[in-house]
């Protein structure tokens, strides 16, 4: 039998050896991504589910809150105010004659608040006093309670402005007029959806990457590869490039869905979006590689990726909770969460436009964290089994 090529030329491989090995690794990884349903699931299906949840399901707005409206004053003016409430797009109103009718509903949570137009509402206004509208809310749900209160004030304010000519009401000395820039509807979707793109890239960059590398250890393929002339750097790079591209693909899908399905405005440039996303993928991928190099086990890797990347991106990035209102020690911790640099910039790209000084600073910090992760991952991925 003479099936083998002439003896190996030894370690001094041809100059193209490294490039070819790298290309082979990238090709192998791409086949795996395409053929493994779980990669597609994590890179495309899960992001879509997340977007839908944040786009439709989770809303921090109190739109169409059910309230009870007790009209205890039967004058036309009171009726007119009541009509304003009923017309409001923020409230779904159940009308009654007495606040007691709604007490039980409030306790049971069937309504979120009771708006009471008291019996002497118009007389007080006409008599020069300040007319009072009573708002009864469930204090155990402070978020909703304050929405009901604020929006009720808003409705009353609008109504008074319209009626000012007709009824004699003392004009308030100072009128606070609120105006929201960039997100005038204050739709939480408009900042949740861009934020969730950061979460999605964490999924692909850290969770998926740590899983696929850990899988190679579990299945013994890592061992077989390491016994070939491939170097640790080629191994790492061969993992990074495909998942970097996959992360960008996943991001692109999310952006298209955000803009064309959810109607989130996109006021910045594609260049800024790509620069930010690419920079964010560096720490995300680095962390994924570090986790898998340290655990070599898919179960542990997924747990660690969820705990150290996914949850912080969710909770400590300003995505859902304002960083400024966190205790200082938690604020310190958020400094190392790459998503906290990405999310405000992404939100700006969508809602405000390009603010390059802010973006460049974020990119610099993310690349710095990424560099640290890669150094740590490379140190842990020496060509050794134990």
């Amino acid at each position: 039998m003479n099936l083998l090529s002439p003896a190996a030329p030894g370690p001094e491989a041809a100059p193209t050896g490294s490039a070819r090995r790298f290309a082979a690794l990238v090709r192998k990884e791409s086949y795996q991504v395409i053929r493994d349903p779980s990669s597609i699931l994590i890179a495309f299906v899960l992001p879509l589910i997340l977007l839908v949840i944040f786009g439709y399901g989770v809303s921090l707005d109190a739109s169409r809150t059910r309230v009870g409206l007790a009209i205890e004053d039967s004058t036309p003016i009171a009726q007119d105010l009541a009509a304003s409430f009923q017309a409001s797009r923020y409230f779904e109103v159940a009308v009654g004659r007495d606040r007691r009718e709604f007490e039980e509903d409030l306790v049971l949570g069937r309504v979120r608040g009771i708006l009471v137009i008291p019996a002497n509402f118009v007389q007080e206004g006409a008599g020069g006093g300040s007319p009072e509208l009573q708002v009864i809310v469930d204090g155990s749900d402070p978020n909703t309670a304050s929405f009901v209160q604020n929006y009720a004030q808003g409705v009353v304010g609008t109504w008074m402005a319209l009626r000012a000519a007709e009824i004699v009401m003392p004009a308030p000395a100072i009128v606070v007029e609120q105006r929201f820039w960039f997100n005038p509807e204050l739709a939480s979707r408009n900042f949740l959806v861009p934020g969730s793109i950061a979460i999605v890239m964490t999924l692909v960059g850290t969770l998926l990457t740590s899983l696929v590398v850990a899988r190679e250890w579990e299945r013994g393929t890592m061992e077989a590869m390491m016994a070939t002339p491939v170097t640790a750097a080629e191994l790492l790079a061969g993992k990074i490039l495909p998942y970097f591209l996959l992360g960008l693909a996943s991001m692109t899908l999310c952006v298209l869905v955000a803009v064309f399905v959810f109607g989130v405005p996109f006021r910045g440039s594609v260049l800024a979006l790509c620069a930010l996303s690419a920079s964010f993928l560096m720490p995300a991928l680095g962390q994924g590689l570090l986790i898998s190099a340290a655990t070599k086990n898919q179960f542990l890797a997924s747990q660690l990726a969820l705990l150290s990347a996914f949850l912080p991106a969710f909770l400590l990035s300003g995505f859902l909770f304002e960083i400024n209102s966190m205790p200082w020690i938690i604020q310190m911790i958020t400094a190392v969460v790459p998503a906290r640099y990405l999310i405000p910039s992404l939100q700006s790209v969508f809602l405000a436009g390009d603010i390059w000084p802010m973006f460049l600073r974020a990119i610099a910090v993310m690349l710095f964290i990424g560099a640290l992760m890669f150094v740590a991952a490379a140190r842990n991925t020496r060509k050794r089994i134990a």
Partner: protein
Amino acid sequence: MGEEFVRMSQVTKRFGSAPPALDAVSGSIQGGEITGLVGPDGAGKTTLIRLMTGLMLPDGGTIEVLGFNTRTQAARIQASIGYMPQRFGLYEDLSVRENLDLYADLRGLPLSERPAVFDELLTFTDLKRFAGRLAGKLSGGMKQKLGLACALLRKPRLLLLDEPGVGVDPISRRDLWTMVRDLTREGIGVVWSTAYLDEAEACDRILLLNQGKLLFSGTPPQLTERVEGRVFKLTGIEGRRRPILRKVLDDPGVLDGVIQGEAIRLVLGAAGGRDWNAAELAGPAARIKPAEPRFEDAFVDMLGGGPGGRSKLADAAALRVPDESHAVIEAKGLTKRFGDFVAARDITFAIPRGQIFGLLGPNGAGKSTTFKMLCGLLKPTEGEGRMAGFDLRRDTAAARNRLGYMAQKFSLYGDLSVAQNLAFFAGVYGLSGPHRRERIALMTEIFEFGPLLGMSARDLPLGLKQRLALACAVLHEPEALFLDEPTSGVDPITRREFWTHINGLVEKGVTVLVTTHFMDEAEYCDRISLIYRGRSIALGSPDELKASVAGPGTPDPTMEDAFIALVKNSEAAEAA
């Protein structure tokens, strides 16, 4: 003798605080030969191979591979070796062709040479027809050949194969051996690690490892020489063989004895045994004849001999009279389909009380499926299974209470202590009160668990794990024992201890069903069924099966010869 390819001196490797995985191992490996790295699981075989690849560094001592030090020149070593790890190192999502391409790129095989090399490798491994198939969809034997092809892409000078024979059907195993043999003719050095002693016998040279220590280094005949003239076979036995084996083993001059089909194989100590009168021992037709010494005889001799013939476990068991006419376990036309895949087709047999019945076959042949249908873990698509008279479909719980199950790799709770495992399994089998305490105390005494009760099951050595698994399976005094690959990978002494218990229990009327891919173990059974691709292709006593394939070429076939011949016959019959 060829050129020296690997030189190991005083190689030591530790993992944590456990006893060293390798303890001052010195030896060498030559080119142009197959060197067997032989020993039970946990002996240090894989560790030694990894040390040779330079993927792991020794804690003490040095290894030179092809003249390069693994510590400082690992890259040079990796450029000129081929390595097939235990799970072959294939990408299951990649096709045969893509796997070859990947490894060709990683090993720097020039593009111009590829068509010729791939063509020859695919022909050599007979994978040409499957070049486009995903590696994950290949059978175990084909995966292994592909793994070998990937390791051979760039003519390696040294080929390291880690347990290539595990879980592969005997035909593929023999094919692989022939391929590797061809390679040595070109001067390639091959290291073949194995726990199977029959594989070891065929190597040119062996390094025998046990618990991290090198017991022997040399050629197989040099090893068997030490028991030359001390190995005998007792044939023509009248009546049951196991009580006789027990009697013989109780002779301090007898070092080792096992059932081998209808016969008993004996190894005498250096001082020689008592002068047995065969006729007196085993009936008028009995003869004691010298036998060809085998590797396992020598291994046992080297380890100081096997255990005696008495099983305390069997002594403590209640007697149910063995009864040839009454079937305890019955399979009638058992068939299991998963979609359009038939995992087991029309399996029929009956096991009378006090017999050992073996299901012999490679991984994936349908042994475990049959086994699971008979313990009531899987519902048969067709056919019925009965256990102690109970229909397994309807009276699953009643049937299960009468059987003890020892799963492959011993399903113990690693995080629980020995005592907690015993208590847990006693609870699972419904033992309670004083009876439960008595049974646990009895097992503790029989298996000498006393000093180990507080230890986590995970930290027990393999042999003790096996003992504990057996104890847990017999706590409730089952009528039947189901043993799934009970002794694969354990050292021969532990294996003998185990079979001494099983033999003893069988004499007390316990019925045993055992699955194994271990040809030697099949010889311990009264009857076996050869399972291949979901069918039972032959059924009979080991000697009957062997005799059925004996011919001019193979006057005295081994169990493996029999298996291969019977598989070929059945394939020929199917093709006709």
